[in-house]
C-alpha cells in the first residue's frame, strides 16, 4: 500500500515543503526563482524530448511556441484581471484570478498547440533537416509577428502580470507562483509519461525507428505526428505562460533561437528519448547556469566547453536512451515505465 503510493506521497510532501518554505520565506527570493525556473526548464526539456527524442525529429524552434504561450496567457490574464493602460479596467473581478489562473495558463498552452500546427502540417511530407528549417523559420515568424504587434508592446515587451499575482495573493496569502509551477511541472511530466507509454504513444517511438515500417504496420503516422507536435508545443506554451508570470515581463527577444538552443542542449545532454534524463539534465543545467553566474560573459564560454567535453566522453548524453529505473532497478518497485 505504502509502496504503491510512495511516489504520490513524496510529491505531495515536496509540494507541501516548497509551499511552507516559500510562505515562511525561509529561502531567499533568488533561490525561489531559481527553483521556479528549474520547473519551467523541466517542462521545456521534457516536452522537446517528446519530439526530438521519442519521435526522432529535429525541432529547433521550441522557444517560438513558448513565446506564443507566454503572450497569450499574459495578455489574457492582464485583460481579464488587472487594470492596464491598454486594456482599461479588468473585465472580471480580480478576485476570480485565484480560480482562473490555471485556466489562463492552459489557454496559453492551447494557443501554442495551435501554433504547433504550423510545424505539424509540413511534417507530413518533410522529414529530417528540412523539417528542422521549418521549425527555425516558425520560431522567427512567431517572434517577428509579435514584434510587429504594437498593441501588446511590440519589441518593447508586455508587462502587468505582477498585479494579477498580487490580486491572487489578496484573496488568500499563499505563494501562488511556486505552487502552480510545481503542479504544472508534475502535470507535464505525468502527461508525457502516460502519453509515451500508452498504446497510442508506442507509435511515437515507432516513427523514430522506421517511419515507413510503422506506416505499414498500420500506425497512422500523420495523426501521431500532429498530436505529438501539438502536445509538445502546447506544453512549451504552458512553460512560456509560467515563465511570463514568474518574471512579470515578457519581450519577444527573450524567446529567440538562443533560448531554443538552450532547450536543445538540455534534451541532448540528458539523452534522447529518456524522460528521466530530460528532467535530470534540465535540473542540472539550471543549477550550472546559476552557479556560473559570477563569471558573467565567460559563463557562455565555459558552459559550451563543458558540454563539448561531456559529448566527447559520453556521446549519447548522460542517460542514453535509458530511464532512471533501468539504471537503478530497485526504483521499479515504486513506479513502472512500460
Amino acid at each position: 500500500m505504502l509502496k504503491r503510493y510512495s511516489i504520490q506521497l513524496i510529491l505531495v510532501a515536496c509540494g507541501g515543503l516548497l509551499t511552507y518554505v516559500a510562505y515562511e520565506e525561509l529561502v531567499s527570493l533568488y533561490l525561489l526563482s531559481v527553483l521556479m525556473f528549474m520547473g519551467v526548464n523541466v517542462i521545456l526539456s521534457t516536452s522537446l524530448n517528446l519530439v526530438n527524442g521519442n519521435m526522432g525529429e529535429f525541432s529547433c524552434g521550441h522557444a517560438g511556441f513558448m513565446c506564443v504561450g507566454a503572450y497569450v496567457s499574459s495578455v489574457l490574464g492582464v485583460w481579464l484581471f488587472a487594470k492596464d493602460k491598454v486594456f482599461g479596467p479588468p473585465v472580471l473581478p480580480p478576485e476570480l484570478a485565484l480560480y482562473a489562473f490555471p485556466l489562463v495558463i492552459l489557454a496559453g498552452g492551447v494557443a501554442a498547440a495551435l501554433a504547433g500546427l504550423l510545424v505539424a502540417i509540413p511534417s507530413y511530407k518533410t522529414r529530417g533537416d528540412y523539417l528542422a528549417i521549418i521549425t527555425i523559420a516558425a520560431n522567427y515568424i512567431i517572434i517577428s509577428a509579435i514584434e510587429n504587434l504594437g498593441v501588446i508592446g511590440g519589441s518593447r515587451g508586455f508587462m502587468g502580470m505582477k498585479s494579477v499575482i498580487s490580486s491572487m495573493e489578496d484573496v488568500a496569502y499563499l505563494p501562488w507562483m511556486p505552487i502552480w509551477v510545481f503542479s504544472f511541472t508534475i502535470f507535464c511530466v505525468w502527461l508525457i509519461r502516460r502519453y509515451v507509454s500508452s498504446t497510442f504513444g508506442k507509435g511515437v517511438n515507432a516513427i523514430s525507428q522506421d517511419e515507413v515500417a510503422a506506416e505499414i504496420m498500420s500506425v497512422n503516422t500523420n495523426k501521431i505526428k500532429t498530436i505529438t507536435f501539438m502536445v509538445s508545443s502546447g506544453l512549451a506554451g504552458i512553460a512560456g505562460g509560467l515563465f511570463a508570470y514568474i518574471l512579470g515581463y515578457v519581450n519577444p527577444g527573450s524567446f529567440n533561437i538562443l533560448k531554443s538552443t538552450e532547450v536543445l542542449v538540455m534534451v541532448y545532454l540528458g539523452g534522447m528519448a529518456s524522460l528521466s534524463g530530460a528532467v535530470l539534465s534540465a535540473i542540472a543545467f539550471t543549477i550550472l547556469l546559476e552557479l556560473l553566474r559570477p563569471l558573467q560573459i565567460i559563463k557562455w564560454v565555459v558552459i559550451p566547453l563543458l558540454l563539448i567535453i561531456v559529448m566527447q566522453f559520453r556521446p549519447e548524453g548522460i542517460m542514453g536512451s535509458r530511464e532512471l529505473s533501468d539504471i537503478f532497478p530497485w526504483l521499479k518497485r515504486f513506479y513502472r515505465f512500460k
Partner: protein
Amino acid sequence: MLATIIQNLINALQWGSFYALIALGYTLVYGVLTLINFAHGDIFMVGAYIAFFVATFMLSAAGLPGWAALALTIPLTMILTSMVGVTLERVAYRPLRRKGAHRLYVVITALMCGLILEHANLALLGASRKAFPPMITEHVYNIGGVSFTNLKVAVIVSAILVFILLQWIVTKTKVGMAMRAISYDKFAVPLMGIPMDNIIVATFVLGSGMAGLAGILFAMSYPILEPYMGALIGWKAFIAAVVGGIGDIRGAFLGGFLLGAVEILVVAFFPSTFRDLIAFTVLLVILAFRPTGLFGVAKTTKI
C-alpha cells in the same frame, strides 16, 4: 520606375551575395557529412574580425598603401579563417564521428562551438563595436538614375566568380568527385582508396575560406563589427541553403540570392520590421511546395 527596379535588383544581388557565400559553406559540409555546421555563421564573424586585424596591421603597422593591403588581406584572411574551420573539425567533430555518435549530437556540438566563438570574442575584445578601416576609396557611379559603388560591383562579381570556381571544383576535379562520392556512399569510399579525412578537411577549408571572403566583403560594405553579427546571418544563410536544396552548390547560390531579393523587396515596400516575418513566410511556402528545396532531389527510401 525602371531605374527603381534596377536599383533594387543591384541591392538585392549585393545583399544576396553575402547569403550565397555563407550558404555555400553550409551546403558543402552538409553535402559531404550530412552535418549542419551551425558554427558556420560564427566562422563568418571570425572571418570579419580576422580581416579587421589583418587590415589594421597592414595599414598602420606595415604602412602599406590601400590596394596592397587589400591584396594581402584577402588571401591571409581566407587562410586564417579556414584554419579556424579546420580546427573545429579536428577538435570537436572528428572525435565524435569516430565514436559513431548520433548525428544530432554532432549538430549540438557545432551549436556549442558557435556559442564559444561568439562569447570568447565578446570576452576577449569587449562589447564595443569595431570600425573597419577603409582600404579602397568608394566611388559612387550614377547611370540613368541607378547609383552603385565600385564595392557593390566587386561583391557581386566575386560571389559569381566563387560560384564558378566551386562549381568547377565540385564537378570537374578529383577532390570534387571524391566529395560527391562521400555523400553518395560513405562506406564504399574508403574501400576505393580515397582518404576520407583529407577530403573532409578540404571541404572545411573551402567552406570556411569562402566564409572568410564573405567576412571581408561584409566588413568593407558595412564597416561595423560586433560579435553577434554572424549569428542571425548564419541562420538565415542556412535557411537559404535549404531552400535552394542543401548539398547542391547551385541551390546555395540561388537560395542566397532569393533570400536577398525577398528581403530587399520587403524593405522597399513595407516597414523594415516586417523583413524577417515576410522573408521567412515566403521560404516556408516554398518549402511547403517543394519539400526538398529548389534543386534538391527527393531521396527514395528502400524498404
